[in-house]
């Protein structure tokens, strides 16, 4: 890992100033994605600006129609939150299945979303639940936020402050996990919420999270596993690697979708 200058600001303004003043700066939240890629020299920032001490990025609140999760909340905090467990249990369960216990103790929702790994779990949850990504300057709908593998709508100096999840009537996440990394080989979140039925897939496509319009329409007509059982999933654009080939991934998407619908009860 190349050396860098470390900044530990205590306010968003100071964090933005540090980031803007750096030649090649980056933000660090929990570091569970960033540090591994820095070790590989896939990222070599001149400056690393920590958000750990920035006020106002923590906490989870039940706002009635929605649950708002602070960007620096760890996966363990989301999984263990009474508000999330009570209002959106599928989100708590999803967070509890990320990586391993130590990764969940350090990794954050904001960091995961800013990184947008194509096999991360949160993108599927955000898109299916119709979450809003709140930043230091605006609110971004999930449908607009994710823009392909490791690509997001964030500007270079934009900081996620929170994520707002509308409370669905029912939702569930089913993941076929890579046995070593626990990243999704194929993960499907199904949600029946204020924006209707949404089906979002992660891990399967080289372009990152995507929605299954055919399944959404079928579930809108009849919310049952049988409704999605007959819907084929194309392997076009699916990832193919040592964990799973494109055809197998396409098959897994269909299976995970069915399981997620069943788990909705």
């Amino acid at each position, binding site marked *: 890992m190349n050396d860098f200058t*470390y900044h530990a600001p205590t306010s968003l303004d100071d964090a933005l100033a540090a980031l803007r003043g750096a030649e090649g700066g980056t933000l660090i939240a929990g570091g569970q994605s960033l*540090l591994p890629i820095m070790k590989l020299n896939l990222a070599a920032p001149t400056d*690393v600006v*920590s958000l750990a001490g920035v006020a106002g990025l923590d906490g989870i609140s039940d706002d009635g129609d929605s649950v708002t999760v602070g960007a620096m909340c760890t996966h363990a905090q989301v999984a263990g939150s009474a508000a999330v467990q009570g209002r959106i249990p599928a989100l708590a369960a999803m967070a509890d299945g990320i990586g391993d216990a130590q990764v969940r103790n350090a990794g954050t929702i904001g960091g995961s979303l800013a990184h947008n790994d194509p096999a991360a779990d949160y993108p599927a949850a955000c898109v299916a639940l119709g979450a809003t990504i709140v930043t230091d300057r605006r609110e971004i709908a999930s449908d607009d936020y994710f823009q392909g593998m490791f690509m997001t709508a964030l500007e270079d100096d934009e900081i996620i402050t929170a994520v707002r999840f509308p409370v669905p009537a029912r939702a569930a996440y089913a993941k076929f996990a890579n046995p070593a990394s626990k990243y999704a080989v194929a993960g499907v979140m199904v949600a029946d919420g204020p924006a209707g039925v949404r089906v979002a897939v992660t891990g399967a496509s080289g372009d990152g999270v995507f929605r299954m319009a055919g399944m959404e329409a079928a579930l809108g007509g009849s919310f049952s596993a049988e409704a999605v059982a007959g819907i084929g999933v194309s392997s076009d654009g699916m990832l193919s690697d040592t964990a799973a080939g494109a055809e197998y991934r396409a098959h897994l998407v269909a299976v995970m979708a069915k399981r997620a619908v069943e788990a909705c009860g």
Partner: protein
Amino acid sequence: MPTVRMTVNGMERSGTVEGRTLLVDFLREHLGLTGTHVGCDTSQCGACVVHVNGSSVKSCTCLAVQADGADVTTIEGLANGADLHPMQEAFREHHGLQCGFCTPGMVMSAVDLANRDSDPSEHDVREWLEGNLCRCTGYHNIVKAVQAGARAMGGGS
């Protein structure tokens, strides 16, 4: 170069590090606490697990500067003099190790679990140890040791 200060095993420690210095390297190279091991250096094996502010984390995937001001506990901080910590004693009693390389991380991870659940099921233990790899034991005795250690701790470390 940044100076970091943290409480390590109850003692105030400080040192001058590079920004890129990993917490595990600060513990091992600067403080001489070599009980925390580096196995994979890719946050998969868990040999480097320590507690930061009471939660188990992988110290190979944490910068020393991120732990500035934190309360850190390593494997060296568990025993009380010659008296092993209940979780260490359980690993000895149940032969929860062979070569021992993964053991410091296993024990630190297990203590975090026991602090949350004083009577974890076999399934709970196996799920919790997802991020701790052992290439000798086949986990059977580790799981038994963690369950016994958790019960011996009685909900407190």
